[in-house]
């Protein structure tokens, strides 16, 4: 009998049990490591071709398309000219931008792909965080908000209503690429796979061979090398986690994380990390970011109204992690969260 063995990614407080699957491949992409695990009763040569081409035909081309660092990417191209004229957009990217707009509405502005100027203003792009003067925040807020983005479905174009607006898919791109990989794998006959980006955004396709309950993902306190808080089982579901555990700075004793609230212009406070478990990795990626911004109360309202599910991690007065499960109880506890390591 095969058993889950390895623990691979621990970046986002999330652990992927790799186990004894037939093929696993990792490649650098989107500033981190993208991993695909693939199983199935097919010849080795077919599985290998499929897992390799998922990278060459899906992951890497999409990275080129979505990067906001590259002026020549589709996003870079849009950002450099959409304030002057409507820019034609590739069909699937246009669909993604429409979904982004819908997610902004769903989260009441907590998730917003125009947040880039604020992230820059706070120094998070260059890893040189600092509290900016209030007038800088105000100037950045002037060009933040999806209401500045005009999506024309007839012409399939995007335009900005002013100079300085920019798109940054950092809060959703990983999930989108995971979904496109899963779509590609399905199209080529795969029914048992796991795709994950950066250890933070995952889609579990089908039933894994080693666990009838589903793909088991361990949850650890974000940014801490302690034991797992518990695990979730996923089948045809996505999970994404967001938090301020990797990119933050401390000034005057206050910790500022890199997830900036697009509405206030200030980094989100209170929630250390949040997970979304939902139907697509695109949605999970965006919602997990939004949950950090919204905080427990508003997240609960969102989940309750829309049938979503969240795991929120905060720290108590003694800096011990507290997990709040909202909308469902997916977490299979392996030990009390306050038991320490």
């Amino acid at each position, binding site marked *: 009998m095969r058993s889950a063995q390895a623990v691979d990614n621990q970046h986002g407080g999330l652990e992927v049990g790799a186990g004894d699957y037939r093929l696993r491949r990792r490649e650098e992409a989107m500033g981190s490591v993208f991993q695909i695990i693939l199983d199935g009763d097919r010849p080795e040569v077919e599985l290998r071709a499929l897992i*390799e081409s998922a990278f060459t035909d899906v992951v890497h081309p999409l990275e080129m398309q979505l990067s906001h660092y590259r002026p020549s990417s589709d996003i870079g191209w849009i950002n450099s000219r959409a304030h002057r004229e409507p820019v034609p957009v590739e069909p699937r990217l246009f669909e993604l931008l429409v979904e982004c707009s819908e997610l902004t509405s769903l989260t009441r502005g907590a998730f917003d792909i125009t947040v880039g100027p604020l992230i820059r203003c706070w120094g998070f792009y260059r890893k040189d965080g600092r509290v900016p003067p209030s007038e800088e925040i105000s100037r950045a807020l002037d060009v933040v908000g999806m209401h500045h983005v005009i999506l024309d479905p007839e012409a*399939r174009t995007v335009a900005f209503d002013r100079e300085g607006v920019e798109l940054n898919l950092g809060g959703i791109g990983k999930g989108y690429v995971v979904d496109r990989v899963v779509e590609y794998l399905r199209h080529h006959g795969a029914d048992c796979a796991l795709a994950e980006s950066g250890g933070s955004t995952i889609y579990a396709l089908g039933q894994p061979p080693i666990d009838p309950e589903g793909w088991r993902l361990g949850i650890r306190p974000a940014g801490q090398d302690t034991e797992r808080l518990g695990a979730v089982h996923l089948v045809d579901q996505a999970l994404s986690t967001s938090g301020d555990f990797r990119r933050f700075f401390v000034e005057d004793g206050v910790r500022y994380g890199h997830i900036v609230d697009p509405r206030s212009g200030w980094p989100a406070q209170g929630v250390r990390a949040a997970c979304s478990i939902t139907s697509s990795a695109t949605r999970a990626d965006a919602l997990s970011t939004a949950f950090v911004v919204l905080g427990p109360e508003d997240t609960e309202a969102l989940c309750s109204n829309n049938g979503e599910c969240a795991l929120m991690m905060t720290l108590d007065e003694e800096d011990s992690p507290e997990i709040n499960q909202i909308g469902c109880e997916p977490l299979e506890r392996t030990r009390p969260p306050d038991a320490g390591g």
Partner: protein
Amino acid sequence: MMDNSGLDRRQFLKTAATVAVGAHVAASSARAQDGQKLRMGLVGCGGQGTVLLTNALRVPEIEWVATCDIVEEKAKGAAERIEEGGNVPTFTNYQDMLESVEMDAVAIAVPLHWHAPIAIAAFETGLHVFCEKCMAYTVDECKDMIRAQMSANKILQIGHHLRYHPLYWHAKRTFVEGGLLGQITSVYAQWNRNNSWRRPVAIEGDFTEWGYPDADHLVNWRLYQEYSGGLMTELASHQIDVVTWMLDRTPTAVQGMGGVDFYDDGRTVPDNVHVSFQYPGGVTFDYISGTTNAFSIFGNQCHEVIKGTEGTLVMTHLNPGPTDSMGWFFPEEGTQREIWMDMAHKTDIGGHEAILLDATVTEGPPLAGQPISTLIDEEGHLQKMTYQVEFEEFVISCREMKLPSCDGMIGMKSAADAIMANQAIATGETLPFPEDMYEVTM
């Protein structure tokens, strides 16, 4: 020195071939002169065709008026990419497209063995041709394409996109022609990946009419000798072209090794090649391409190393991360090294101090109508993909009947070199290049 006027290549044609060059610069069509959009059809809507289309859609002077692929859904997908819910006609047979659509040019991005037949048919229809590299399956086919182009008096551009890369222009103008490398004595290049190069097959259909007994042979055409020269034509030809460009000369002999040594999956092209070209003046060019190990000290699967008496130039493209391309210069001890190191933006590569190439200082004639220095920033970010720049130049070439930076004569050189290298691998012999290797007679 090579420039966009194509003068050197016209001179080359005059001396190396007996072709009617004068006709080549004759007046173009009234439509092109009027500055109207260049109406283009795309033949081949797979991976590379999609890359070309995506980038060419950013060139406002081009209007895409038809798409063609023997897999109908791919042609329709490309048409949808051009226009939402589109009216762009699609075809599964390129001859039908050529006969029924009024247009000025075609872009060809199909399996290698179909390049020449489709290009020649397009010229016979009176169209300009942009053809993906490698130029053709055989050297004779390359020459047939050039003859057809000359007869039609149209433009032929080959898609060696590194000819449209600002970093490579910087290397050519500043370091090679500027003399900073000194006398070039050897070149090394690699394109190593850890990837079987095989793709999964998810299409069905009868493709025997086009030479494919089954869908696998169509999808994986790069793996079969009937359709492709494998690593040499699909990957190495890019880098051979760079070396030809930098050295401004062509090889005199080639030897090589390679085979199907790792992947027991029915492929008939080598999964590894190691070839050595010899050039006039004793310059050697060693080349490796493999599919089982992607390591490179330069952090990239793909690079060219040009060694001169004054220093070593390294160029990479297809880098992971936000910067597509990087280049470094390593001055030799006892040269101008100290002066260089005081002036330049330095970096550490494998424990060696190197000068980071900055193509924003590139001077000289423009590329596709724009200063090369504007095509890249100081951090190495391309402002436009090379594929876009090559289509921008294609428009200018068609409108002004001006030879493009990578015309058929240039494309033929790297194709011929790649084909000769495959023959050297197959025979195990050192093959001298015939004196008339690159000559075209009408």
